[in-house]
């Protein structure tokens, strides 16, 4: 990949300070998002993938806080801004949030207000971020905004957009509601879209429709997407670049083909193996990852994956934390099987 990244996350750390102790939900995560590309972040529950995206929008709720790291986002004007340093209630993040960086949340039912029509809510967003539509300045009138929403609804494949505009979210089916949510996310022409498990709550045939829509929109508008999911099938079909996370750290990252066809980290390999496929032997024991996810207060020392790793090196993996380093083929892995660099202690 060449050129300047749109977003560059460097050594991000998010800590939740609880009475029982502090939890390192995101513990030194780095990755780049290039303009117009889809980066998939995969991992099991508790790996910190959702917290990472919340940090990008400065939406980490207390007692969580961004403890360290940088997130350089290149704004429309060309200047880079460190999202990690912005005041969560400040003017600059409010200009970016929802406008330049938009979010498609997991649960469209919980994300729309039930007492306003979906149209009203999108009109409000467009008028609030009028700059995205009127770069030269000036407001967007209510009727202009409504016309934009009708266009957007048509774009995301909602039939009878004029009528749907005046529906409440609870009157729409799951598929339509997620389409309306996508329309809302696109309403301010974002340059970066964060999709947090956008199809987890919907059925497989509707999921296929929504994924096809996202692929199509991405191609036409050239929006960069950070796609969060636990579903490896969805990642394979959506992402061009994949980041695999475990316990708040990046285990491996690389081009989607490399991650699926020559995974280098034992965790990635184990994850791919443990998934029942649509071909191959049935009713046989699946390869599993031994043990369970450690409790957040009980983080293993050294490499977070070493207690469950089949290839752990005695005397090494439990003592030091491997850093993410290139391992060839455009991939990077944090694993002592491939390099010897550890985090400074």
């Amino acid at each position, binding site marked *: 990949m060449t050129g300047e990244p749109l977003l560059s996350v460097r050594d991000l750390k998010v800590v939740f300070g609880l009475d029982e102790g502090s939890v390192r939900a995101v513990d030194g995560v780095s990755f780049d998002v290039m303009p117009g590309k889809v980066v998939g972040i995969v991992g099991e529950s508790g790996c910190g993938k959702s917290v990472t995206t919340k940090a990008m929008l400065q939406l980490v709720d207390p007692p969580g806080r961004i403890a360290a790291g940088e997130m350089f986002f290149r704004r429309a004007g060309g200047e880079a801004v460190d999202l990690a340093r912005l005041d969560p209630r400040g003017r600059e993040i409010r200009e970016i949030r929802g406008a330049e960086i938009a979010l498609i949340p997991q649960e469209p039912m919980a994300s729309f207000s039930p007492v306003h029509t979906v149209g009203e809510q999108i009109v409000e967003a467009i008028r609030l971020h009028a700059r995205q539509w009127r770069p030269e300045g000036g407001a967007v009138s209510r009727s202009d905004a409504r016309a934009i929403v009708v266009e957007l609804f048509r774009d995301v494949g909602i039939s009878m957009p004029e009528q749907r505009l005046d529906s409440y979210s609870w009157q729409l089916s799951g598929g339509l509601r997620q389409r309306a949510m996508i329309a809302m996310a696109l309403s301010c022409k974002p340059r970066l879209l964060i999709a947090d498990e956008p199809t987890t709550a919907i059925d497989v045939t509707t999921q296929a429709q929504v994924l096809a829509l996202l692929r199509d929109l991405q191609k036409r508008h050239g929006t960069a997407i950070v796609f969060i999911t*636990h579903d490896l099938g969805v990642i394979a079909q959506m992402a061009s670049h994949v980041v695999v996370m475990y316990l708040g750290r990046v285990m491996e990252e690389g081009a989607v083909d490399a991650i699926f066809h020559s995974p280098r980290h034992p965790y990635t390999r184990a994850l791919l193996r443990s998934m029942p496929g649509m071909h191959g032997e049935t009713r046989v024991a699946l390869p599993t990852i031994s043990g369970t996810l450690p409790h957040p207060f009980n983080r293993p020392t050294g490499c977070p994956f070493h207690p469950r790793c089949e290839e752990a090196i005695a005397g090494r993996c439990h003592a030091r934390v491997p850093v993410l380093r290139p391992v060839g083929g455009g991939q990077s892995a944090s694993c002592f099987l491939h390099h010897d660099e550890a985090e400074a202690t």
Partner: protein
Amino acid sequence: MSSPVGAQPLLRVRNLRKFFPIVKGVFRRTVGHVRAVDDVGFDVQEGETLGLVGESGCGKTTTSRCILRAMAPTSGEMLYRRRDGSTVDLAPLSRRELRPLRAEIQMIFQDPFGSLNPRMTLFDNVGEPLLVNGMLNRGERMDRVAELLRLVGLRPEFMHRFPHAFSGGQRQRIGIARALSTNPRLVVADEPVSALDVSVQAQVLNLLLELQERLRLTFLFVAHDLSVVRHISDRVAVMYVGQIVELAPTKSIFERPRHPYTAALLKAVPVADPRVSAGDVLLKGEVPSPANPPAGCYFNPRCPFADERCRREAPVLRELASGHSVRCYHAERLELAVPQERIDL
């Protein structure tokens, strides 16, 4: 429907219907019915796993609830062969008559967090069915619970802990131990792994297969995840708007689906291989409401092969080849696309 084993089936379901009334106004007049389960029939052989798949609202859960007699069906027969060889119809039985059968037909729930009583220790949670079934001696119950915990891969010492101390996968094991406490013959598992992460899901699927082998259990496995159903089932029934549209051995239904809906469903599953392209979305539109299904074949408005007859007359489930039944007029002449072969690593 021929039986692969030849022996009498353990459960024979015929013309099962469950309608829920739609009531309106102060006099609670019935203005219509939701036909949640509408003429469902299948056999379950002893020792096999029958998978029941379909999208939300297709009636798979209602079907399983009727078999468990958690609700009374509107009409139909559910002939269950008892341990002594006699056959009993579960449909008309009263609560009192059902009581001795409850021990033989057990259930594994979807949500491992909601299905265990948080105020009861594992001993009380797993041991309660034993108490209800007359095992009054505490020491005897302790021995049995210890044996059950060992059976599902948990340490017997955990008996005096509360559910909150366990992870999702461990809780699901506890739920399985409880279901097995009464030595059931038929186990209805409704989405038993859908709340679990990929790596834990593989562990629980392996446990279910192992237990089935060891205890000669019969599973009715309800799920929406096709790769999971494919992995665990001997035969699969696909449901659409309250009806079975296709029923066949796992291999034949996945390799050569004969109903256009089954084919579309298989096509919609995202393949976990970036080299296999997603292709076109086959299914447009949405699942019709079971309160107001379309005339003729319920699938005709979304079916690319539908003709005049499909819009007029409703097809019945008929046997195409040995053990392969389908509810479609055109099944013989359709060449349905099967998802591309996955390039294995």
